[in-house]
C-alpha cells in the first residue's frame, strides 16, 4: 500500500517507511544513538528530498529517544545532572553551528563539508571504538584478568568548577561536559544528526562515565536537541513531514523498546564493538561514493 507524503511530495510504500523506522529505532535503543546518521541517507536513498529527510528524521528521533529514555529511567540509568550540562553546551554549540552552516553555504561548499564531516568523524570514532572494544573483549576472555581502574587521572581533573555527578560516579569540572556538548552541538547542526554517535564515545572515553548510564543520558540530551531542530525547521523551512514522521515513529518507538531489551543482554564492550562496525560501514559507503566516479556526472533539482 502506497501513501502520498504531503511535504516530501512523493509516494512511498507504507511497509518501507515502518520498516525503516523499526530498524533504525532498534539500533537507537540498542546503542543510545539517535540513528540520524543512518536514517537521513536511507530516506534520501528512497527518494525523499534531503531537506525533508533531515528535518523529518529529527522529529522521529524525538519519539524514539523519549521511548528509549523512559526504559533507561526505570533502571536508573540516566544522569540528569550530567545530561543538563551537556544540553546547555549543546544549545550554545548548535547556535554556533547554524551560523557556521550559513557561512559555508555562502561559500557554496556546504554539501562537500557535510560529506567530509561524515567520513572523517564516522571514521575516527568508528576506528577508536572498534580498537578499544576488541581490546576490552580480549581482556575479559584472558584468565585472571585484573580489575582496571575506573578512569585515569590527568590534566582534565585540574580544571575549575568541579561538580559531583553521583550517578556517573564522577567528580569533575563542569567545563568538560559543557565543552563536549558544545562541540557535538556544532557538528550536529552541520551534519543534521542528533549527535549520539559522537556523544556516546565522548562520554565514555573523555568523561570516563560508566557505560551503563551513558546510553540513557545521551538519549535524554538528544530529545531536547532534536525537538529544537524540529521546531526551527518547521518555522524556517517547512520541511518537517508529519505524515512521514508519524509512520517512522510508529515503527521507531516499537523498535527502540526491543533495542533497549536486546542491549541489556549484551556486555558494554560488545555493544560498542557492534556500534563501531556499523559506524565504519556507513563511513566506508560515504567515502566510496566520494572517491568513485559516479555513473552520471549530472544531477538535477527542481527549485520551488
Amino acid at each position, binding site marked *: 500500500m*502506497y*501513501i*502520498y507524503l*504531503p*511535504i516530501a*511530495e*512523493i*509516494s512511498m510504500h507504507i511497509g518501507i517507511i515502518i520498516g525503516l523506522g523499526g530498524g533504525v529505532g532498534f539500533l537507537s535503543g540498542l546503542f543510545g544513538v539517535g540513528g540520524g546518521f543512518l536514517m537521513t541517507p536511507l530516506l534520501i536513498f528512497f*527518494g525523499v528530498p534531503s531537506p525533508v529527510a533531515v528535518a523529518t528524521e529529527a*522529529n*522521529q528521533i*524525538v*519519539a*524514539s*529517544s*523519549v*521511548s*528509549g529514555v*523512559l*526504559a533507561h529511567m*526505570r533502571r536508573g540509568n540516566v544522569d540528569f545532572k550530567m545530561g543538563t550540562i551537556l544540553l546547555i553546551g549543546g544549545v550554545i554549540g548548535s547556535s554556533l553551528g547554524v551560523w557556521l552552516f550559513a557561512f559555508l553555504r555562502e561559500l*557554496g561548499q556546504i*554539501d*562537500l563539508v557535510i560529506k567530509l564531516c561524515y567520513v572523517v568523524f564516522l571514521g575516527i570514532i568508528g576506528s577508536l571504538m572498534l580498537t578499544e572494544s576488541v581490546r576490552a573483549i580480549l581482556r575479559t576472555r584472558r584468565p585472571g584478568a585484573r580489575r582496571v581502574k575506573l578512569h585515569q587521572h590527568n590534566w582534565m581533573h585540574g580544571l575549575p568548577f568541579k561538580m559531583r555527578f553521583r550517578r556517573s560516579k564522577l567528580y569533575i569540572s563542569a567545563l568538560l561536559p559543557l565543552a563536549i556538548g558544545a562541540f557535538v552541538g556544532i557538528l550536529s547542526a552541520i551534519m543534521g544528526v542528533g549527535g549520539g554517535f559522537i556523544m556516546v564515545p565522548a562520554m565514555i572515553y573523555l568523561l570516563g562515565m560508566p557505560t551503563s548510564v551513558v546510553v540513557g543520558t545521551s538519549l535524554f540530551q538528544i*530529545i531536547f536537541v532534536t*525537538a529544537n531542530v*524540529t*521546531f*526551527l*525547521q*518547521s*518555522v524556517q523551512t*517547512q520541511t*518537517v513531514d*508529519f*505524515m512521514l*514522521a*508519524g509512520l517512522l*515513529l*510508529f515503527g521507531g*518507538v*516499537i523498535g*527502540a*523498546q526491543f533495542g533497549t531489551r536486546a542491549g541489556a543482554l549484551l556486555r558494554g564492550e560488545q555493544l560498542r564493538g557492534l556500534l563501531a562496525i556499523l559506524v565504519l560501514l556507513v563511513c566506508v559507503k560515504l567515502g566510496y*561514493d*566520494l*572517491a*568513485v*566516479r*559516479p555513473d*552520471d*556526472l*549530472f*544531477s*538535477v*533539482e*527542481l*527549485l*520551488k
Partner: protein
Amino acid sequence: MTRLFGLIISLIAASVLTTVPSAASSRLVADLSNKSIAITTGFHGTELLLFGAVDGRAGDDIIVIVTGPPTDIAQRRKDNRAGIWVNVETNIWKQAPSFYNILATRPLDKIASIEMRKQLGIGPAHLGLTMLPEGGTGPAIDGNRFIEALAGNMGSIHLWPAQTGTVSLAQDALFRATLDLPANIVTGDYNIRVLHFRDGMAISEDRTRLNIEKGGLTADIYNLAHDYSALYGIFAIAFAVAAGWLAAAAFRRN
C-alpha cells in the same frame, strides 16, 4: 525583476513556438477523461484518457505534447577535485517544464522533419529554454551541450519520459491516448497540445488543460505546515513525545 524576466521569456517562447496557421486547418477536437486531479493520501500516480476527433485522411498522424507547470531546475555537474567527486558547476534552467511527455501515432522522425519539429517546439531540445549561472545573474549560458543531460536526469525521475507514448487513430477520425502521470508529479496547471499532421506538415491544433492540486488530508497537512508553521512544529514535537511515552508505557505492562 524575476517577474519581468519571466515575462520576457514567455514572450520569446511565444514567438519561437509558432502555432499552426489556421488557414490550412482542418477540424480537430480533443478532450480529457478528467480535467482536474486531487492528490490525496492514496495517490500513487494516475492514468488519464485523452480522446478526440479529427477530420483526417489515410496516412495522417497525431502528436500530443503534455507540458507541466514551469519551474526553475538546478543542474549540477560533478568533477574530480583532489581525488573526490564534488559538484563543481551549478546552472539554472529558467522556467523549464516540470513535466514533459510526447505521444504520437508513429515515431516522430516519420511524422515530421527535424526542422518542422524545431519550428513547432516539439522535443526538449526545441523548447528554447534559457540557462543562467547559479544565482540567476550574469549572461545566459549556451544550454545546448547540457540539454541532453537534463533530459536524461528528468527521464530517470519519470518527469520527462524518454519514450514517446502511443496515440491510436481509428478510421482516420477518432484518436485516443493514455497519459501516464507519475507519483512524483508536480502540482499546477498542465497544458496538453494536440497536433494533426499531414504529409509532414501540421495542419491543425487543439489545446486542453489539466489541473493537479493537493486534496483531502494531504492538502490540510501541507497548508497547516505553511500557514501555521510554529503551531505545526509544536504539534509535531508533542505528537512525538506522546507516541514515545505511549510505547514505553505499553511495553512496561508486558
